[in-house]
């Protein structure tokens, strides 16, 4: 928010202070311009926030949006029901572990790949390899999960065909709870490592070449350059991205889990957002689902605030 201090200077017009009416009349075009976006935020972001009260009500669908104000108030009933249920711990654990493993395994790979790409002497090939590794990032989740499902199919998937050829028994990967997290993390990493490496490649390319030369004069090998020059130089980028990732730690992709999971793997695969979907949209327990969703939003809020605070402390700049 570098501009914040300048704002005050700029908006203080020379001479007298303007009245509100004058300001409105001066900026009416800007206000008109912003109006559609304003309405969008009101309807699709702030109105749902009002809808949070459903989490404290015995809300029924037939009553429509006005039902918000005349449904029976049940206080914290839904929250109690959730935390007393066997699902609460399982959902929180699954949500956290999916993110945590994605972070542990997914975060270092783009950094390693970026270093490898920038160390390549065959520049043309390095560039081609980079473009190739971006591609999966733009493929839809449906296609990625669809490919995974078919590759791993016990009847005609290529992976099980290979297992059988080598004398093994086919494995039902997609309906085995032990495999859910691994598949989620591996496919996520496969899809995003190339794209996520872009920023590290840029950071490494931004290092002043004279620093390499200075190290070479001192007789440092290229391995030593990686450890003592490149890594320290991109450490700020690494920390910044790590903090941003932490802010979204519980933001597990609903879509991917929803497309991947089945009742057979709920034990490890069911996360808070998919549970909210099933309870609310499929079973019509709107009050209960809203309450669980509110809990989820509140935890997410804490994580983003914490990550923003950390970012400000560590790097001097917050995300927004």
């Amino acid at each position: 928010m570098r501009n914040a201090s300048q704002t005050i200077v700029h908006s203080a017009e020379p001479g007298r202070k303007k009245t509100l009416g004058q300001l409105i009349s001066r900026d009416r075009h800007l206000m008109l311009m912003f109006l559609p976006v304003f309405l969008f935020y009101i309807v699709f972001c702030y109105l749902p926030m009002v809808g949070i009260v459903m989490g404290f009500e015995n809300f029924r669908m037939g009553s429509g949006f006005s039902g918000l104000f005349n449904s029976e108030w049940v206080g914290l009933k839904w929250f109690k029901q959730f935390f007393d249920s066997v699902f609460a711990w399982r959902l929180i654990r699954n949500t956290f572990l999916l993110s945590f493993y994605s972070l542990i395994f997914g975060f270092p790979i783009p950094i390693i790949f970026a270093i490898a790409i920038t160390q390549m002497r065959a520049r043309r090939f390095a560039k081609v390899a980079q473009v190739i590794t971006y591609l999966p990032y733009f493929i839809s989740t449906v296609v990625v999960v669809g490919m995974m499902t078919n590759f791993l199919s016990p009847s005609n998937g290529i992976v099980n065909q290979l297992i059988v050829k080598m004398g093994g028994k086919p494995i039902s990967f997609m309906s085995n709870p032990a495999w859910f997290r691994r598949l989620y993390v591996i496919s996520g990493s496969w899809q995003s490592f190339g794209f996520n490496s872009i920023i590290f490649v840029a950071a490494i390319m931004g290092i002043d070449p004279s620093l390499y030369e200075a190290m070479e004069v001192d007789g440092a090998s290229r391995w030593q350059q990686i450890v003592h020059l490149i890594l320290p130089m991109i450490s700020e980028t690494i920390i910044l991205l790590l903090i941003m990732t932490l802010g979204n730690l519980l933001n597990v992709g609903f879509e991917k889990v929803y497309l991947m999971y089945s009742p057979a793997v709920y034990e490890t695969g069911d996360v808070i957002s998919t549970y909210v979907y099933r309870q609310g949209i499929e079973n019509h327990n709107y009050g209960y689902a809203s309450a669980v969703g509110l809990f989820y939003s509140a935890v997410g809020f804490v994580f983003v605030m914490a990550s923003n605070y950390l970012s400000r402390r560590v790097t001097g700049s917050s995300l927004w």
Partner: protein
Amino acid sequence: MSVKAIKAKPHSFRSESASDKALDIVVWILVLFAAAVTLYPFLYVVSVAFSDGGAVARGEVFLLPHFSSSSLDAFGMVTKYKQLWTSYGNTFLYTILGTIANVVFTCLGAYPLSKRSFFLRRPLNFFVVFTMYFSGGLIPTYMVVTGIGLYNSRLAMILPVLVSTYNMMICRSAMSSVPQDLFENASLEGASEFYMMLHIAVPLIKPTLAVLTLYYAVARYNDFFNAMLYLGDTSLQPLQMFLRRVLILSSSEILQQAGTAGAAAAAQNTLKIRYVCIVLAAIPIFCITPFVQKYLVAGTMLGAVKG
């Protein structure tokens, strides 16, 4: 960071040592492995889609296609299936209209937020940014969208995702880095805010807008979530819903309409049909992505560095 910078070679004039050679080898292995792991699934999918059905059923296709006279059977069945073209058409409609709406409203929102003299700038910035921290959640949002009559309406693919706050913040940053005297001079000459946005701000942030357009277009093309929630009518559903039925829910609708319901034909073509669908769905993405590479690099930097 431009493409040129990637070409720069910082270590070209050192004497070679054994450890440097070893590094070269490690680097080659890593990069080749990464490229192979990325490409192989796609190559395999294409090979199966266009191989002899018998070879696929016997599990003989691993890398390259085994062509035969029946190679194109599955392709024929898929392309003759009407529902595919309906959903393809829907996807293109949502992608084109959605992306246009996204970019237009992102600019309309970002411009006032970037104007330092705008007296509502700070409260409105807070109003927008707050939604990145907190949301009402899935159920209340679902209630609102269905409550205003968007269920089974094509607008459900556009309105609830009209602007992405993150992208609008990127656009705002880019616009606020435009020299403010340009606006001051123009407004002294009587230019309106709309005119200034269109003729000063937008042309000067074209590279940023190119990246945002790409992000939006890919998001609209791949949007499955809104379709699943709000479009129950198959004639309105986009390609991603169709793909889910065929690829993940193992729907045999294409085989059935092709009329070759024999067990042998089914065995030979089930997998091929699915992989043909993947190929058809991925073609537009694969055609566009390599050409926007230079913008991508700039775009990721924008998102992470500016703020």
